[in-house]
């Protein structure tokens, strides 16, 4: 079993909604990117699995912060640093996939982020999903009402979620060597989901 880096995992997933982000190979490249963005950024060491456990993620960096963090992060991983716009989420979801020994590829959607394993609120659909199947499954979530928007927040953009689910499904169906996929967290801001982190596990 080997895990692909976040960057390679996202590349394998193809066209999915994701934050504005860039894999940087030098501090100068990172700073130029962050300046153009003009907002606080997140920086993550390239090719480190379980990044948060190894201190390989830095949040809310301004230009000076990024300049200081870049060499440290580069040294933790493979010498590259992923720099991304910082997304403030109203809701954290996770989309995943795995190969079940009895029923083949399945895709999951659940309430995600750091609370995913505490909430254990996740539903599965067979890949590829049939029309209407994902919506029915989402209705089975204990926290289904969170997807419908509340307190003035817009409802989740289901079509954008479907793009992520379809990407996971396609990857499992097209590449036999893929065993598990995690898009976690999928950050939802004003109803729009983006895949903030991804992990593809291969045989």
């Amino acid at each position, binding site marked *: 079993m080997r895990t692909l880096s976040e960057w390679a995992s996202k590349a394998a997933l193809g066209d999915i909604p994701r934050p504005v982000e860039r894999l940087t190979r030098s501090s100068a490249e990172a700073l130029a990117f962050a300046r153009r963005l003009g907002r606080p950024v997140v920086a993550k060491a390239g090719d480190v699995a379980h990044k948060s456990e190894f201190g390989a993620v830095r949040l809310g960096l301004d230009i000076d912060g990024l300049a200081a963090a870049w060499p440290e992060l580069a040294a933790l991983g493979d010498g590259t640093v992923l720099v991304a716009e910082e997304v403030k989420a109203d809701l954290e979801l996770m989309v995943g996939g795995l190969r*079940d020994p*009895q*029923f083949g590829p*399945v895709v*999951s959607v659940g309430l995600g982020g750091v609370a995913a394993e505490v909430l254990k609120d*996740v539903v599965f659909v*067979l890949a590829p999903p049939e029309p209407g199947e994902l919506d*029915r499954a989402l209705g089975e979530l204990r926290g289904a009402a969170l997807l419908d928007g509340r307190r003035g927040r817009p409802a989740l953009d289901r079509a954008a979620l479907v793009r992520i689910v379809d990407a996971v499904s396609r990857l499992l169906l097209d590449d036999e060597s893929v065993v598990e996929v995690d898009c*976690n967290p999928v950050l939802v801001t004003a109803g729009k989901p983006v895949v903030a982190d991804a992990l593809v*596990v291969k045989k």
Partner: protein
Amino acid sequence: MRNVLEGGFDGRVLAVNPSREEVLGLRSVPCLQEDVDLALVSVPAPAVGNAVADAARAGCRAAIVLASGFGETGSAGAAAERELAATAREAGMRLVGPNCMGVVSRRGASWLNGSYFWQLPGAAGGVSMVSQSGAFGGMFFAEARRSGLGVARFLSVGNSADVTETDAIEWLAADPLTAVIGLFAEAFRDGRRFIDVVSACPKPVVVLKAGKEAAGARAAASHTGSLAGRHGAVRAAFRRAGVVEALTADEFFDLLTVLAAGRPAAALHGGLAVLTISGGPGVLASDAAERLGLVLPPPSEVTVRRLRELAPAFAATGNPIDLTPQCPPAAFGPAIAAVFEDPAFAGVIVINCGLDIPEFGAGVAAARQATGKPVTAFLLEVPQIEAALRETGIPLLPSPERAVAAYRALADVNRLKPR
């Protein structure tokens, strides 16, 4: 052999035994040489290979190997099992088992009991059961005898060297005696085909899946993997196939009971009435209905007025509708009819604890027949009412909550298995 003979099988039975001339009064032959419909192989494991080969050579259509000592014992047993399946396949014979409890099947007014269960179901009916566990088969028959559940077929698939639970369901889907199919499963050998077969089956398929949570969760590298347990994919498969899933043995038997009594003509979109003479149990039912997402609207004004005329002043005319034990016997019929006929209600839960008044039973039976609305009931120690409701085909459940859950299953089945 004794089970076959005492079960009342009305076809021809042939005894095969190399070491005796007679078995239970039947002359026996040392080796099967006739192309019988079914060979029941109940011999020690080392002798099974020859017995199956004989049956295959003789041209039997099917063999059921009840003997144990195959795949469940290790790799040598698994190899022997594969050989049995190959022998059968070459001869075009189907093979059930090994390591199973056999078959029970209605045949006209009689039973074929080709199983190790010596007590047969009490009643004939439309429920057929497929089990990967022999012991759960025993629970099924005990429950059928206790509750009067009517049975059509039972097949214990054991190690499924050839015939799998999916093959059995495919056959039952086209079986004229079978109205509802129950399956106890621990694993699915041909997962995607199981989904296709159940999807195509026009009859409700109720599944109790054991082993939902992995004892030692799989060593998963991802969050998705660690959250899946063993049941994530199973739920996905059941949703797509339209399986009616039972989470407990009690629920499994309740679902078979209620679905065997027939399914509602249309989807149940309307409200539910809880009709009772017993306050507390009626409230338990309405609590359960709310938990399950069923709507309990108040009766319409016309109904309320009618109930006020008929029932005591302290009767509750909200929902639950509590006619109270003090309701005059002659008023039960018209009061019950008024509730059933109310367009606010798509169906009714009937509850009666201990007031065995014939007018109550007759009223429910008549109203049910007149309106055709689905009903489930919880009755306690009211034999006359029980008899009247059973006669009308109203499913009786062992608690108020279970009566409501069974009703909910009725409401769901047309969504899962559209006609």
